[in-house]
């Protein structure tokens, strides 16, 4: 089974979407903590600075960015650009590197 890169990129978009769906309860929990009171806001900040949670959040943030940029890629292709076999392959690579670029940039900031 040898899938083309564009197929892998497309499946990863789906996998990322499912992962984000399962991530929602955590987001809601932290959202609730962050608004309840100042002490619970501080508690949420302490929680997200825990090593394990932090690693998990960085991973989910990457998944979110990947889903976002492949979504944008999808819509640019819907408009009619980069639809040939070669162009779509290069476009998939470009979207992955754009994801990595923004991920690293925002993590450093």
């Amino acid at each position, binding site marked *: 089974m040898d899938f083309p890169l564009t197929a892998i990129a497309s499946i990863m978009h*789906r996998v990322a*979407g*499912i992962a984000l*769906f399962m991530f*929602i309860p955590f987001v*809601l929990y932290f*959202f*609730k903590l*962050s*608004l*309840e*009171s*100042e002490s619970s*806001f*501080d508690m949420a900040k302490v929680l997200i600075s825990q090593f394990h949670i932090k690693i998990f959040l960085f991973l989910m943030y990457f998944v979110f960015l990947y889903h*976002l940029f492949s*979504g*944008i890629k999808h*819509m640019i292709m*819907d408009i009619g650009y980069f639809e040939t076999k070669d162009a779509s392959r290069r476009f998939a690579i470009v979207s992955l590197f754009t994801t990595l670029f923004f991920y690293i940039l925002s993590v450093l900031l």
Partner: protein
Amino acid sequence: MIMLSNTGWKSGLKEWIVQRLTGIYITFYFLFIVFYLFLNGGFTYLNWINLFSSFYFKIITVLFIFNIVLHLGIGMSIVTTDYISSSMLRVFVDFLVNIFLLSYIFFIMQILWGFK
């Protein structure tokens, strides 16, 4: 023989458009929060509570959840129709997904109007 058409009822065109429009809303919602926090000096309790105390931003947030419900409802059902061949199981999974998604509307409203 099943005839598929790209016009009329159940063509998927509506889902196709809704998926893209909701995606755009979700993107701009997150961009707004990022820029708001960035321009107001970072992620502090005061900034955060000011943003979500605003009635209009509460409405925008509830609409955001509606967008999430639509986007994920369509996205998840596309995935389930592609990978779950048993229609019994697929309908059940779609049902569970939608129950979860709809409950988030009430969670978010309780959080938004429940604090302070």
